[in-house]
């Protein structure tokens, strides 16, 4: 265990935390794992615990790309988007910082205990709370200001109106950080937060890692992985069904109605699309488009 206290007098104390000045900088941080890094190198990816599968995938993709480009991914180790961001960074073999709302020795959320251990070993765990402190509700807004402080920019992937992600974004704005947000379907309930930020002009819309780098005016040698070569060409019927699938999940019935095709043929097409990874069945049995599906649909 490499647990230590970091105070403003330590060399490890980063510039970002001081810049939190107007809004109550922390006096001491408890840190485990790799040393903290300067703010310029850190990007926070935050969002709701109650994310959609799409949101989860996006956050993971962002985490991965940021890590590959040499950035440190900062997030809050909550379920959902936070988990995805951390996991993406770890999978790319990068550094990630998790800011906790409890003591370093407290596993919270429980389902992320393993991830927490991994980050302690391969990344950094940071908290303001002393050992043994339970995760109390009021710790989390305070944690969010540290996320904002540590990072150069904050990317909001998904979040409702009153989500912690929006609090983080607000704190980041107060601390003069860049705020980026992923625009969402107006019918996605957890897309309201980012959409709201974009509408108020407080956040820059981004839809891919490339755009994150562009809007932060960062010169990085990161290239989006080329789409899987030889995407099997789609029949007219398949394309029609693919177009009927949106980011919002739809039922087979709705696809029949939208395309005017008989249920039998829609079923066959859906199952083909699903097998090829272009569509996917949701938790309750509706269908939505996947990333690959979106690419294929855009390519044609």
């Amino acid at each position, binding site marked *: 265990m490499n647990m230590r206290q970091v105070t403003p007098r330590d060399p490890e104390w980063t510039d970002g935390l001081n810049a939190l000045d107007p809004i109550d900088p922390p006096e001491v941080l408890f840190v485990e794992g790799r040393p903290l890094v300067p703010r310029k190198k850190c990007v926070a990816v935050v969002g709701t615990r*109650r994310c959609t599968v799409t949101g*989860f995938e996006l956050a993971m993709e962002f985490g991965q790309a940021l890590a590959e480009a040499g950035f440190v991914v900062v997030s809050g180790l909550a*379920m959902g988007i936070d988990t995805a961001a951390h*996991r993406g960074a770890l999978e790319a073999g990068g550094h990630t910082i998790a800011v906790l709302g409890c003591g370093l020795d407290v596993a919270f959320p429980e389902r992320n205990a393993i991830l927490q251990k991994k980050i302690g070993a391969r990344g950094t765990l940071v908290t303001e709370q002393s050992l043994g402190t339970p995760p109390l509700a009021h710790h989390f807004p305070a944690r969010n200001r540290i996320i904002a402080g540590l990072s150069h920019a904050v990317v909001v992937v998904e979040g409702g109106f009153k989500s912690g992600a929006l609090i983080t974004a607000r704190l980041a704005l107060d601390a003069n950080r860049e705020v980026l947000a992923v625009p969402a379907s107006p019918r996605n309930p957890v897309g*309201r937060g980012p959409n709201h930020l974009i509408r108020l002009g407080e956040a820059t819309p981004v839809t891919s890692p490339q755009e994150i780098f562009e809007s932060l005016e960062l010169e990085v040698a990161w290239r989006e992985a080329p789409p899987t070569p030889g995407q099997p060409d789609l029949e007219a019927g398949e394309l029609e069904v693919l177009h009927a699938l949106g980011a*919002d999940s739809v039922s*087979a019935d709705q696809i029949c109605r939208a395309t005017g095709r008989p249920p039998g043929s829609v079923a066959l097409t859906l199952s083909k699309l*699903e097998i090829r990874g272009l569509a996917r069945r*949701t938790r309750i049995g509706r269908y939505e488009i996947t990333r690959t599906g979106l690419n294929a649909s855009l390519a044609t």
Partner: protein
Amino acid sequence: MLAKTESVALVGSDARLIEVEVHVALGGLPTFRLVGLPAKSVVEAEQRTRAAVESLDHRWPQKRITANLAPGALRKEGTHFDLAIALGVLAADKRLDGQAIADWVCVGELALDGSIRPVRGVLASAIECRRAERRGLLCPSVNAPEAALIEGVETVAVSSLREAVEFFEGRWDPPKVLPMPPDVEPLVEDLREVRGHEGAKRGLEIAAAGGHNLLMIGSPGSGKTMLAQRLPGILPEMSFEESMEVTKLYSIAGLLGEGRSLIRTRPFRAPHQHISTAGLIGGGHGLARPGEVSLADRGVLFLDELSLFRRDVLESLRGPLEEGVIRLARSGGVVNYPANFSLIAATNPCPCGFKEDPYRGCTCTPRQLRDHDAVISGPLLDRIDIQLVLDRLTRDELMGAGAEQGDSSAAVRERVEKARLVQLERYGSALKTNANVPKRELMTHAELTPAARTDLADSIEKHHLSGRGVTRVLRVARTIADLEGAGSIYPEHIADALLLRLCAIEEHFQAEAGR
């Protein structure tokens, strides 16, 4: 002096003959003793019998009386022993000819004024009389039409003890009893009345054709109950044997109602979420009474709001789902009830009901969602082959000026019956359907075309289908092929079955956990 007659004891869904012996001793103190493991309701027969006998202006014998119900080791419950005991006392007291009552089976509860009240299980009693080749059955006139269904058993309908006595004295001709009529086909909800929901209607038809259990997922007000109520109407018409089985059970449960008709419509039972295990599968003291699973026999058991049922209660459904009967052991002995039903479970997509709803956001916490999923993916899911997702209807669909009404229940039932016929020929038993034949038997008949085989193999890999999941897909695909009269399973059957496959909940969990 000793007199003998017979009555019955109800054991599960069957009646068993009970010998009723009454002995009036020559000496001793005037007492009445009832032996042969009688429950409280049987012991109380003494008071009713005493008053009823005296209503005939016959003095209750002031001697030592012993009534014995044999076999003595079987626990007896119910009030229907009154009539046999009263006749036995009269015969033992030489008021009646002992020979006359000896080969009759008597059931009926006595009122204090000597009239006879209806009892439970008369149909089962008549069946037992025929099996044991007894001469006839003396039963309350209200219940007599039940007994008259059974040919070869003379049914005597009596409405008072006096009539019974006069019958045995040859002074009274019992009225002719007509067997109870089949119930008038009630206004079953017709599938045609359901607007939209094309996919769900088709799913319902497939479930009916293959005897599959199904799970419906939909927001509040999406029409889960409405659809479930229409399943009995598209299941094949009940055979006479099925009708008898159900009527017998309802007779034993005392639920035949005033009409007293032969049940020809499949039962639909929708127990409340707070039901106890005993209420659902049957239970009670002594000998267990039938529960909802048995009352839904040959029909539909609808569990609305599945996630609100107690987990242990749902767990108890496993046995009956597996075997079609329920075996209940209580202090009084073990009884069996049939419990051959189609299960429809319905649930909201999440506790608040609006997950993935296009017009309203879901407000559930992750923990709530997890708990909800844990219940639906719990004990029952092994036995459910089909999952239907219901859309909330749009305003246009609700108004839907009778646009496309689809097929009527009668038309769907015709197709279902045809598919069942195919299965009957294949499996050689009306009780075997694609949903419940053993896996090995299914496999020998679930021949896939090469293209279908490839599709299935691909989807196994893609969706991480478990062994059980594959079997379920095959069962449903077999049914779809049967509905279309296809010999082997084609790719579109597999695709349709995949569309109806059970919850992606596990898949979803894996996605969330990042795999």
